[in-house]
């Protein structure tokens, strides 16, 4: 990956090596444990309908395998630490935030408007300042894609304030 620090000069922050492997392992284990808990809530099939194993057995085995392997990579990381990743820049968080904007707008207002807003946010914060290009990226191109999908594939997009105008 390009955004990996050179290992030289990172010795002073050696504790950070443990940090990312610990956090990643902890997140995987916690999420897997929550899912493992849910497997105990799956319905149990009576023996007569049971095909080989219960429906919960296979996901349980997978989750236990994931937890076991995650513990293994964590213990290996104590001997052979992971490389430190660079701090994520603001542009990453803005892009992530634009996803939230897209979800909110497309759910409550309009799908097309959601795409247009995301496009303009991403394009602007990634450095585009020319209004013409911002309009092309956020309105003209999504409109072409929208019409293309609608006509070629006969797709019906979810209702919304702009989409309803298009569908009349």
């Amino acid at each position, binding site marked *: 990956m390009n955004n990996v620090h050179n290992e030289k000069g990172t010795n002073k922050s050696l504790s950070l090596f443990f940090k990312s492997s610990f956090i990643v392992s902890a997140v995987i284990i916690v999420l897997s444990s929550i899912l493992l808990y849910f497997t105990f809530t799956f319905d149990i099939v009576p023996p007569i309908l049971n095909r080989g*194993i219960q*429906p919960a057995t296979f996901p349980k085995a997978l989750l236990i395998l994931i937890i076991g392997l995650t513990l293994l990579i964590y213990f290996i990381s104590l001997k052979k630490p992971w490389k430190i990743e660079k701090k994520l820049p603001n542009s990453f968080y803005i892009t992530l935030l634009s996803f939230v904007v897209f979800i909110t707008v*497309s759910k409550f207002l309009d799908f097309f408007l959601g795409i247009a807003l995301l496009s303009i946010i991403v394009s602007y914060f990634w450095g585009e300042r020319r209004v013409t290009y911002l309009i092309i990226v956020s309105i003209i191109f999504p409109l072409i*894609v929208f019409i293309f999908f609608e006509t070629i594939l006969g797709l019906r997009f979810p209702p919304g304030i702009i989409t309803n105008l298009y569908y009349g």
Partner: protein
Amino acid sequence: MENLGLIFAPLFSYKLLIVLFFGTIFGLILGVLPGLGPTTGGALILPFTMTLDPLSAIVLLTAIYCAGTYGGAITAILINTPGTPAAAATCLDGYPLAQKGEAGRALGMATVSSVIGGIASVVVLIFFAPLLANLAYEFGQPEYFALAIFGLTMLASIGEGSPIKNLIAGAFGILISTVGKDFMTSIDRFTFGINELTEGIGFIPVVVGLFAISEMLTQSTLINQIFNRVALKAVKLPSIDDYKKTWKTIIRSSGIGSFIGVLPAEGGTVASLIGYAEAKRWSKKSEDFGKGSIEGIAGAEAANNAATGGAMVPTLALGIPGSATTAVILTGLIIHGVRPGPDLFREQPEFLYGIFGSMLIANILFFVLGFFGAKIFARITLIPNKLLWPMIFAVSVCGTYSLNQSIIDVWLMLLFGVIGFFMRRYGFSVVPVIIGLILGELVEGTLRQSLVIFDGNWLMFLQRPIALTFFVLSLIALSFPLLKRKKKNDKV
């Protein structure tokens, strides 16, 4: 072998030739653009293939696969950034040679060796896939289970990065496949009361999320990156002297690529790294590697394109994808109602040989288009990311929504995009997730059916010779990285 004549059938179908032409152009564009590539492109174009007949749809996807794998070399040589992961090894010598003012020579060698590797692998596909399909007639549920396990362990052992992380990613992929109604008992699993999840999580939201959206997030961290572009006057055919230097390397890498491609893993990426390393090992001028060696370019490019045909072997013969892109092709087959496996060879030979023939033609087409159009395709990289990625997002969202007309699929795509970004950031490959997702139903289904056959006795697996062979191979595959590490430590 009596069906070999069917290979030439696509040549006589203007419709297939048009599909091949556009598939090759689209594949080259996808290959040239860093961060995209045949896997993402294939997934995005899947909804459009619904307007085509099954053969045209698969021909389109395979043309994208072949041309996209080659297209990565153009960016690797001209801007030192691999257009596709499979072109990473091409950067090592392609860019230094281009910096010496020989970009045309570097691209010429990349084009010729890619075509030779690609055609060699299609020949392997034509002869090996029917043999493997015949062998698969002997397979029952336990054998398929053992084969799927072998596929997953191979993914861990020869994939890129940490084998344990690859295994975790593969298990995660299988876990995703368990979401929805259990196909044997109709009991809900991980649906959390969401109706849309009872049908399970589709392949497209996962693959578009893990590849396209996660790449968009990665690009958001690199917006200040500056590329040094080398000017290209024209692509030059390799000289007689270049052929003399590289013919052995091209043949060797074609063999390596075809073999690696057959194994379920990151086909082209691993093949090109091994092809490059072997080219260096056997070269009389190994000291030139990394400084613009023409053999280095030939070794990497012949191998990554040779992996394309190889990866199609298990995909068509067994229904087990040999790479992430062939997982997309496999999904395309299933969407169009074509079930890969031995029966396909017996019942629809014209369909299969149509694919073989189309792959051969695609290789010739990208040779012509690459040779005369590399300069134009290279200009596509001039589209700035700040304009390109919002557009890709619009296509990704509409493409993902279109298959099931489900907004939940779009949310899932974004979720997998974020998961994919963090997976890649912390050294987990996303390819095993895709393969795991595809193999998940096969693994669980064959395991449960086998246990029904064996009356719950797990030890019965060991009484099936073919299954036992695959289990032993799986153990060898799992211990291979440990042995490799031990050997490395012993050397130190």
